[in-house]
């Protein structure tokens, strides 16, 4: 790396390829999770939303359902953001 680019990088310490790699790792991991999720997951999410909406006013975005593989068992994770 040349002298000028060395100083230039003082302002921008993270190289763009590094940023690209980190962004890709996150988005790819997220999309793989969706891909391997069981087919019933979207329906399950809709029905859970309907039940919770009977008691609290929530939007579709306020509920997140995902399944994580941990060793030889799967964990169903349900996140609901309730309004104040």
């Amino acid at each position, binding site marked *: *790396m*040349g*002298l*000028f*680019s060395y100083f230039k990088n003082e302002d921008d310490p993270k*190289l*763009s*390829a*590094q940023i*690209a*790699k980190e*962004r*890709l*790792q996150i*988005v*790819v991991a997220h*999309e*793989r999770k969706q*891909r391997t999720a069981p087919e019933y997951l979207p329906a399950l999410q809709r029905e859970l939303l309907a039940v919770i909406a009977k008691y609290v006013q929530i939007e579709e975005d306020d509920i997140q359902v995902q399944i994580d593989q941990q060793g030889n068992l799967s964990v169903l994770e349900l996140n609901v953001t309730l309004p104040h």
Partner: protein
Amino acid sequence: MAKIIVVTSGKGGVGKTTTSAAVATGLAVAGHKTAVLDFDVGLRNLDLIMGCERRVVYDFVNVINGEATLKQALIKDKRTDNLYILPASQTRDKDALSKEGVERVLNELSELFDFIICDSPAGIEHGAQMALYFADEAIVVTNPEVSSVRDSDRIIGILQSKSRKAERGEPVKEHLLLTRYNPSRVAQGEMLSVQDVEEILAIDLLGVIPESQSVLKASNQGVPVILDDESDAGMAYSDAVARLLGENRPHRFLEAQKKGFLKRVFGG
């Protein structure tokens, strides 16, 4: 029985057709009877890259519809023995490639050839799915760039779930081919490295094709770039084909060419 290899990527413009032409030619040069099929219905281009565009009479869809025999539609390559091209239809709609029709053509080709190379269209629609459905192996062509890597991961997911082998619970052997690689930009931290892409996609590395002027020159002339044995891209494709055939060859062209003293001090 032929080995069926799909050349796919999800994203367009990364070098699928260039790779299909190069790999098919390389296999034929190595003495294997090879057919290369264009699945890009409506956007035929393999014929141009192979330099046989003026010899197209019948196409893939004609064969499926029984309007021509396979023998009539296959174009024998003029430069390379053992090599035949089946062009895509330029006029029909994409659904013309029925699964049964494609299977029938592939079965017939399997009797005649050692390798069948399927040049996939971009995207993940019907044409791309037909190109990969019957594959034994896949060459996933990827550029060291975020959208290409993401699309490659998506197409790998489709190979693992929607191909015939996947449906039978067998793995499709996936190979990563990194194209348009620029080692000096990688050294500057401006481009994803081979290791970065391998780490993200987690499939076997078949080869790295350096960004090269010879690729455009070859497509201008309608000569598969692998036949340009003086170019870095041509040599890198030859290495990749040798690896596909089981040879163990070290990867070349991964390092930037050494800069002179002044360039190193002042950049540029």
